[in-house]
Each structure stands twice: as structure tokens, then as C-alpha cells.
């Protein structure tokens, strides 16, 4: 699945400056999984504390909470289900991304 755009972009940009077009895969896994969280946990301050914002929250804290929800150690309504939908690796990737965002 390639864009018709890239060749044009490269041609326009490179002109006569030939260079090998090596396409590195830029992994957006953390960003894409964190986007799931953002639907409910957005930093909209009008929402009050019912659903906490996650931007800038410590990664260890997010990972720990998700494990507690998943294992049933932390009472919850919806999170005990949703936490079961993600692997440890996916939770780590999303938590790293969220922790790096400015609150």
C-alpha cells in the first residue's frame, strides 16, 4: 500500500540530488493504542475527576493501574473489562506515550 504522493514528494524534494529512498517503518504503536485511552480520558478539564486525564501521568503508575484492573485487584466498572483487552507490551507502549505528553 503505497502512496502516489511519496514519489512526487521525493522527486520534488530530491530534484537532481539522487539518494537511495530507504523507507524506515516508523512505529506508532504507542501513539495508536494511547489514542484508544484518549476517547474517554481526554484532558478536558470541564469533565471533572470522574475520568482522570492521563497526559503526563507516570508510566509506572499507568502500567500498575492497568494490571490491577485486569487482575481484579482494583475495583472498577468498565476498566476491569477494557484492561483485559491489552497485552503487557501494548500497555507499556501506550503508557510510555502517555507519560511523555504534556498535561
Amino acid at each position, binding site marked *: *500500500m*503505497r*502512496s*502516489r*504522493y*511519496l*514519489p*512526487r*514528494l*521525493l522527486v*520534488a*524534494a*530530491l*530534484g*537532481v*540530488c539522487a*539518494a537511495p*529512498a*530507504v*523507507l*524506515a*517503518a*516508523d512505529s*506508532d*504503536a504507542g*501513539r*495508536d*493504542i*494511547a*489514542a*484508544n*485511552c*484518549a*476517547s*474517554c*480520558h*481526554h*484532558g*478536558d478539564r*470541564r*469533565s*471533572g475527576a*470522574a*475520568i482522570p*486525564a*492521563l*497526559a503526563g501521568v507516570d508510566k509506572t503508575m499507568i502500567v500498575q493501574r492497568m494490571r490491577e484492573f485486569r487482575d481484579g485487584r482494583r475495583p472498577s*466498572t*468498565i476498566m476491569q*473489562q*477494557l484492561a*483485559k*483487552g*491489552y497485552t503487557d507490551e*501494548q500497555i507499556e507502549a501506550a503508557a510510555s506515550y*502517555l507519560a511523555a*505528553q*504534556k*498535561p
Partner: protein
Amino acid sequence: MTIAGVSGFTRRRLLGAGAGMLVVRALSACANAAPPAAPKVVVVGGGYAGATAARYLRLWSGGAIDVTLIEREVAFVSCPLSNLVIGGSRRLADITIAYDGLERLGVRRIRGEAVAIDAPARTVRLAHGDPISYDRLILAPGVDFIYDAIPGLRSPAAQALVPHAWKAGPQTVALRVRLEAMRDGGVFVIHVPKAPYRCPPAPYERACQVASYFVRQKPKSKVIILDANEEVQSKKALFTAAWNGRYKGYVEYRPNSELLDVDPAGSTLKLDFEDVLADVINVIPPQRAGAIARELGMANANGSFCEVDFLSYESTAQKNIHVLGDAIQTAPLMPKSGHMANQHGKVCAAAIIALLQGRDVNPAPLFANACYSYIDDREVVHIASVHAYDRAQKTMLVVPGSEGLSPAPSADEAAYAEAWARNIWFDMLG
């Protein structure tokens, strides 16, 4: 800065570490080269799917993609929570949000209606004004109603007498006005079409909202649910418990009640073996993808909904055209919900950015559904699930263990439902 706001996300970041960086370096090395024009993405429809896609295309590209949103309404009105307007605990203004947040992010908004697509020329024609050109087109038109099978409702005049209130806005208010004008002792009849329809639990939530209003204001009145399906389509145990509990004597549920016709003047619904007389009728008609998404052979699932590649939401019938939200043929257990539409928008935005950069799309999309229903104006229940792409079946499947419902209605979940609404509106509209 918000979670999705992606601080420090510049054009350079958009272009990425691979070919993009090469372009940036090459640009600085070749000062004479003209800068390439920004890729153009046109989004038709500013609901949960289209608005989210438009916003995330701008956020995740650092503003490097030129995004145009074509929307016929002046403001967004949320279907989720609109049953509360019908129940009387919210006003339409509470669920209406302007599009300025998207405009501040650089989304160009055109108020109008897309009526045709020229795929080879990559242009969209509007009812009024010049055609709009695109590199990639996103169609998020929602659903159209099918009145063919209900002879008494074929004319617009007849339709005006029987509100569907299944697109939030004036129709929602029209139904509320009818309920307010109804005598105490009256009968409200709601008809549920055969699945698939937009938002599976919503007809039953609406029945609860109207019953809640009757309990408070019109205690001699009654709700009858005529369901064309053989059973309640979502949150069955929770709704049934409410009808047999707090709404006992107020709500009557009749499965397998396919509607043959409606007589708006006589205020009667015609079924196979009986006619049902009503004081207020609410027919939710059968649905299919919005007209623009049925163009060019895209409604290739029974001529009703649009098959898409779940990695990119590209139509399986048309290259460079993506379809989102209620217009798509969903995977099993993937409801036509606002939350799902929001998730489609993000997967599609990420895929389009990758494609415009010549990168592979995410091979393993993963997203969640969260859906709250108000049992009355204070207590709420949820259904939720996580869905992951299955490479073998090329579809989205529920991750085992993630699916489930509330054990019972609660006020705690009402607080979460309220926060959900505010946050997802922010997530899609800024």
C-alpha cells in the same frame, strides 16, 4: 497540551525518520526545489467518525495535511445523550457543539452537501459551489432511512407527522414536544427496525427515558416497544430488569413485531395480526449507508452498507476512498456506535498519514467500544469491549475477556457517562 495534542509534533516529525527525513534533508540540500503541495484529504460528514478523522489528521500530521470537512449542519449534535432530551433531563443545547475547535486546528469547513464523486478526477461535487479535489476522500455520512417498506410514510408530509428522532437535532425536539403535549393516560409506541441499525441499545434506552418521564409526570401513560427483532438487541438483561422493576406497568415489550405500515392520520401502526393505536408514534425506520457512500458500487454489502479494509477503512470497491462510522458493514459484535465511529476515525487517520508517507499502515489495529445507557436520569449501565484485527480473517474480533456489561444500573456510572460524553466530544471536535 492534551493526550492527543502530541506536543512538539512538527512537519519534520510527520515526514518521519525514514523517507521523510530524507525529503527534509534533500529539501535543505536542494534549495531550488519547490516545496511540495500539502496532500489534500476531504472528509464528508462531521459526526463522531468524520470529525475525529479530520482532527487526528491535523494533529498527527503536525498540520502538514490539508483537511477539508464538508458538513451540511452548522453545528454538531450528539446522538448519544439525545434520549435524555426526549426524557426531559437535558436540552438540545447541552448536546450541541460548534465546529470552531476543528477550524482552530486548521480544518477548512465547508457547509454544504456532497452529492457526487468523480473517482478518476478525484473530485467531490457539492449541491452548490465548485467541486473539491482530493488525494484521499473520507466518507462518514452516517445512515439514510429506508421508507420504501412503510407505504404510509413514503411522503415527506407523512414523515413529518411521525418523527424518527434517530438523527439528533430538530427531530429530537419534535418528539419531546409531542410527548409533552400528550394527555396523561396516553400510549407512546416506539418501533425498532431489524438489525443492523444505528446504536443497538438506543431504542431501549429511549423507552426507559420516556417511561421515566411518565413515572414523574404522566403516571397513567404507557410505553409499547414494537421490536421487529426476536429479542432486545443489546443490554437485554439490564433493560428487561428495568421494565420488570422500576417501570413495571409502564413498559410493554413485544418482540417479532415487524411493522407493515403506519397510518399517521389515524395514529395507528399496522402489524401482521393487529393494529396498534398510539397517542405518540416513534418509528425508527430501517437504515442503510448515507447516499454519498452508496455511489460507485461502494455499498457492496447487500446494497446497504460499505465493505472496508479494516486496516485503513479504504472502500473495497474504490481506491483512495475511505468509509467510516455507521455507513460501514461492521465486523460481528462491532456495533454501529458513536464510540466505534470515533475509533474508526483514528485508525483511518493513522493509515492515511502512513499511506501519504509511503509507509505501511499499522498491521494490527486495536480499539475499544464503550457505550453507556441511561436507565433513568440518574442511573446508567454500560457495555464495553476491546476489538483487535485478526490477520487470518482480515476482520476485527473481540479480545476474549474484554466484553461485558454492568451488573446493575448505578449513579457512579452516570458520572462516568457524563465524563465520557464531554471527553469524547473534545476528542473529536477539540
